[in-house]
């Protein structure tokens, strides 16, 4: 049934797009403090491009991995900015991870989080503590691995992922940026949350709502 897993993914992107767009102003304001005041705009633009591209395809005849590939190229061509290549690479790596098993099982979900994180890290050459989106994604990926290791259920796994991401994002406040535009501010970046980490939390929370809700398997998402 590629259709059902594909529908879930498409629904996930819709949800991310809506929630990012709702928080557009807050993200832009965060970027205004230590960057160039466009993070809400670029993220919203990117995910809106993804959902409008996904709206054009026949979900019943598309594999989940293909959804991620489509998302990668739509996001990349819409955004530019740092986030374009970072999330495009993340989605490509997620697609590669899903190709082995297109069911979107709990293990696949954890693998997606890990693959996305690896993609962001590969493309941006960043690491934990650089005050970037990685400060949300790396703890999230670790939490996913941990949950898989102790065989946790969907809702437990996803809460631990989102909780880790939130803690990580909050921690960016006390970091001095070492990557991205904020790096040029030096000490002046202290005290502000990294916008990319903040949007990562929104994305992961939308993923949680997609995958961890009790009846999520049956749910039909608007395309």
């Amino acid at each position, binding site marked *: 049934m590629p259709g059902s897993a594909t529908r879930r993914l498409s629904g996930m992107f819709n949800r991310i797009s809506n929630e990012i767009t709702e928080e557009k102003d807050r993200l*832009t304001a965060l970027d205004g403090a230590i960057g160039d*005041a466009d993070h809400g705009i670029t993220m919203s633009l990117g995910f809106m491009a993804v959902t409008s591209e996904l709206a054009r395809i026949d979900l019943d005849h598309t594999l989940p991995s293909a959804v991620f590939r489509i998302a990668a190229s739509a996001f*990349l061509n819409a955004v530019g900015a*740092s986030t374009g290549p970072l999330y495009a690479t993340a989605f490509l790596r997620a697609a590669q991870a899903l190709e082995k098993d297109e069911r979107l099982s709990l293990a696949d979900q954890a693998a997606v989080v890990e693959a996305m994180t690896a993609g962001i890290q590969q493309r941006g050459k960043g690491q934990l503590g650089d005050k970037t989106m990685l400060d949300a994604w790396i703890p999230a990926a670790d939490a996913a691995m941990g949950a898989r290791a102790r065989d946790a259920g969907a809702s437990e796994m996803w809460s631990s992922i989102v909780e880790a991401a939130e803690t990580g994002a909050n921690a960016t406040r006390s970091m001095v940026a070492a990557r991205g*535009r904020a790096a*040029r501010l030096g000490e002046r970046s202290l005290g502000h949350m990294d916008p990319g980490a903040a949007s990562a939390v929104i994305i992961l929370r939308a993923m949680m709502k997609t995958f961890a809700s009790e009846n999520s398997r049956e749910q039909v998402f608007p395309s």
Partner: protein
Amino acid sequence: MKKFMNRADTMVAESLEGFVAAHEDILMFCPQRKCITRRSLKPGKPALISGGGAGHEPLHVGFVGHGMLDAACTGHIFTSPTPDQILAAIETTDTGGGCLLIVKNYDGDIMNFEMAAEAAKDRHDVEMLFVGDDVASRHSKKTGKRGVAGTMVTEKLLGAAAERGMSLQALRSLGTELAERIFTMGVALRGASVPELRRPTFTLGPDEMEIGVGIHGEAGRSRQVYSGAEAAARAMCDEILAACGSHLTGRALLLVNGLGGTPPAELYLMYGLARRMFEAAGVEIARSLVGTFVTSLDMQGVSITLAVLNEGQFALWDAPVHTAALRWGNEERC
């Protein structure tokens, strides 16, 4: 803050459309308007491609033409162009000599150009050159200096060298050498106002200046008391001289650049001050350029660039150029 625009989301496209219409003798859109290229390319010459966010006009589109760039890609405001735009520029302008991608040193620009280069590498000979001249950011360990107004000096010199037949590899080496010779520092009296936001990216008090600003409306290295042009020029020139270090030899090019909202009279006043300060430090100002070339939307600000060049490099500066924003030398040879 009001702007001469209709809607924030169409501003860049409308402005570019006007730009291409005004300079149709020199340049044109490539298909789907993904980039802007010269009207006529020189077969076999390495193509020089640059690009970056909108909001820095006339950089880079204003430097497309004989003696400078072959193509330029414009992203959203302060946002790197996307890999498909850069790929279109590569495919349109590579006439056999390969392509040099001139990329200002920002994570976003680097990653987008990198992805384009990866996608193109099977079919094109592509080299990347990262430019960074902003001395205010020279202490950023991992990221290094940002590319600001000095970028146009690099584009001019490489453009002239390419026109003379320099190879792709040699152009890249020359670009790398130039990175050690070009030093810029910027100051703002009023922040830029981003079209989507309609308010300044930062707000200064009546006696404040933001020193060490980049070209994306972002805050600078520190906020200081503004006590007039002389003290501001002094702070910038001192920092530039400190950064020059051992490169501070005889002769230099001095570029005073407006950040978008600064009138020519004020730029010339700053030029006069900077020139005197550099001369007092033993630098001979052998070439000068004053104007609005690399902007940060409507920011009220100025940047000072000192390029410590050798004689061969001055000759490249003097070579003919025929673009929308820079034009000199005999046009018959163009």
